């Protein structure tokens, strides 16, 4: 069972503001899904390796060569919040 307080905590971890009024409704809907997930407890997975992805690839490397990159103005074109070639955001500390 996920509690109202846990919903607010997970919301903070995920950087999604959830106010106290909403957290009850979230807890109810999330719990019905978590109940359903609980059915995996029935499956015996002792010694079964996890599958992270199905492609038969381990490490993919490329040569460490400088190639052309996207022009800075294109990278910054989708925001009004920029200054001297940088993204501008509120203080983080």
């Amino acid at each position, binding site marked *: 069972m996920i509690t109202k307080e846990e919903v607010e905590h997970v919301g903070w971890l995920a950087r999604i*503001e959830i106010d106290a009024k909403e957290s009850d409704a*979230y807890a109810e809907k999330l719990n019905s899904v978590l109940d359903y997930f609980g059915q*995996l407890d029935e499956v015996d997975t002792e010694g079964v390796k996890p599958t992270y992805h199905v492609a038969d690839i381990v490490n993919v490397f490329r040569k460490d060569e400088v190639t052309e990159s996207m022009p800075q103005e294109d990278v910054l074109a*989708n925001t009004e919040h920029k200054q001297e070639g940088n*993204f501008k955001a509120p203080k983080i500390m």
Partner: protein
Amino acid sequence: MAAWTDISGIRQKIADSSAEEVTASYIETIGKSKINGFTTVSDEAINAAREIDSNGHEGPLAGVPIAIKENISTKGLSTTCSSKILQGYVPPYDAHVIEKLKAAGAVILGKTNMDEFAMGTSTESSYYGPTFNPWDMDRVPGGSSGGSAAVVAAGEAPVSLGSDTGGSVRCPAAYCGVVGIKPTYGCISRYGLISYANSLEQIGPLATNVADIATIMDVVAGYDSRDSTSINRENTYSDALKDDVKGMKIGVPEEYFGEGIDENVEKAVWDSISKFEDMGATYEKVSMPHTKYALASYYIIAMSEASSNLARFDGTRYGYRADGDNWHVMASKTRAEGFGPEVKRRILLGTYALSAGYHDKYYLKALQVRTLVKQDFDRALANVDVLMAPTMPAPAFKIGEKIDDPLSLYLADVNTVPINLAGVPSISVPCGLSDGMPVGLQIIGKHFDENTIIRAAYSFEQNTDHHTRRPPEVA
């Protein structure tokens, strides 16, 4: 009047008139649309078509209009994942598939509606409002590539691209009576596809017929170093367009005909399997015992990956930004206001499943169950050439019927998500009607054996008339 025209028909029309006229006629049709399938019609489409006319482009798709799902990056053309948080975002680059389509001469007609961030089975969670099923305006077109399926079914585009994380191409293809393929994981580069759950998803084409699917696959599939899961493997998909299933061995997994299956769907699929027998194939029942656990495993993995992938939408570099005098407050408000309820639920559940104390219970467990699901496919496909099952257990449901109950929506994906967990290819083709709504037959193959499922689908089409049925008001 809207009509279905295949790629060879379009090419004939272009030869008789011009690419510009063909594109203009589609734009005119879209202008009269009632289904809300397109989110944006490209201002550049007419120019692109005119250029094809003037330079005598000889590519395999020269002048052929194509519709693109809202989550595939198109340079200079709005790409928002049908979310408020990406309103105003215009990609500065093309996805790999778009580069390939343009090089082949295709005309990008516009962008199609989807469930927000591809999280859904109905296209109702879009910021742009729902798309309507052209067969019945009270019903959903399926999802998440609902726009891409509906516009093809409605004759507003001859072909389209969608993406399939847990059934998002096959479900709307089945609900809208068109053909859609989810290729093998690694077959088509995901470079420029905005990620939802990147270990599961593939881009896939939708069309009115199997030959057009193969034509698009020939253009968009292939190696790309910018996607580290791209596999280097040459294949010509159109080589598989042969009417021949003699000796083909079909496996029918009994778990895919489980509780809650619509009886007309069940009948249509069994009638199809009988048809394959008449055509020279044989079938046997197979068991895939972990199927019932695939749905929970899929959703845990998809939500966990989503919680990481969607962390980038924080208001800093693009899209919507809320006010806040501190970055954390700004980001938390941006995401609270910018994401819809289902996206927030999935991010919260994914974050929870990955958090300290729950990682092994949910995420690790789901990955282990994924291994067991994949082994079911390895075992079943060791003895047969293809598997056949209903794409969706029931036809399209009513708009509003399931939107407030996330779990009931998830349950609709029971026959499609195991395929993504295993990474195998699967194609959905029309195989009949249930109370006037289309039913999809799903043909599943071995890794990188698209050609066998395309051959089976093509043969079925040559020997039946299901694919000729069209929605009312479409010629």
